[in-house]
């Protein structure tokens, strides 16, 4: 029970890592975008994460919970229909932004951008290489994000703050599972 989330995360990471290894042994066939693809990416994956997904996910996460100030508990709940609608807009943004991540020709970061934490987080080139080795694994994580958003959307529609709070943990676990494979697979160095 104590390690529930770690087990879930570990299982997902192992699953995708195995998939990546399989991808290394037999590279996934390249699937170039159709020549007449109408998509024209403007932002990089990093920018989509920082400008679209993360800020909107924060609105969803932080809309519910409890502040305990000097022992006094105050629940966070969207105060009215308008506030619930605002949270729903951001939940939809995260859900649909997952599709942006799956677009074939989106760069990982702006040209020349370095790792934001060298030695801990991979460089954009290393991330690109991992994605290109196994696009289905990358897409699977993006689709899992969409799946994780479904209970959140249902909770919002039902104005059920407890269900939205519970969904928040699953969204975070989904994010973390992908990050541990594609962003900082070498993090978590032993301290002893």
């Amino acid at each position, binding site marked *: 029970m104590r390690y529930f989330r770690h087990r879930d*995360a570990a299982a997902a990471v192992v699953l995708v890592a195995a998939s990546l290894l399989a991808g290394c042994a037999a590279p996934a066939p390249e699937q170039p975008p159709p020549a007449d693809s109408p998509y024209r990416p403007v932002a990089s994956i990093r920018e989509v994460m920082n400008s679209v997904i993360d800020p909107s996910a924060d609105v969803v996460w932080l809309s519910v919970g409890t502040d305990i100030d000097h022992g006094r508990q105050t629940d966070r709940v969207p105060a009215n229909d308008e506030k619930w609608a605002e949270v729903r807009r951001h939940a939809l943004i995260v859900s649909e932004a997952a599709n942006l991540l799956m677009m074939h020709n989106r760069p990982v970061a702006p040209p020349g951008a370095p790792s934001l934490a060298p030695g801990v987080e991979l460089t954009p080139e290393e991330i690109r290489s991992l994605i290109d080795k196994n696009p289905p694994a990358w897409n699977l994580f993006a689709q899992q994000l969409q799946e994780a958003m479904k209970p959140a959307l249902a909770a919002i529609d039902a104005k059920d703050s407890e269900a939205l709070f519970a969904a928040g943990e699953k969204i975070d676990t989904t994010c973390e599972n992908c990050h541990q494979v594609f962003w900082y697979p070498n993090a978590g160095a032993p301290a002893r």
Partner: protein
Amino acid sequence: MKTKILLVVLGAGALWAVQPAQAHHAFAAEYDEKKPVTLTGIVTKMEWVNPHGWLFMDVKQPDGKVKRWTIETSGPSQLSRRGLKKADFTDGMSAVVKGYQGVKDPAFANGRTLVLADGRSFYIGSVGGPNDGADR
């Protein structure tokens, strides 16, 4: 009127400044594994929110001044599963937090263990933290 606008802008800036960072990053990108800290003080606030909880603690420094620490914890559902409850955060409670100091902000820390005044100890660490045995 200009003064009022300036005050509003300054106020917004102050709010922004005290808001904990929410963006995802690897543990080692935000916290220094080589800077373990043991904080003994008074818990003033706990934000029981996803994706991480935030513990605010006043810690008296050797010079007598009080320093406000902001401590990241694991998600609240995990804290609940480990036995920690919202009701454990009472007014004026003293506690000891062990963790690691922030890389960019020395008043930030990633919490690993929380020991309450009654002696109960809880693992409050996040996924991806160092393998220091705190979770055992």
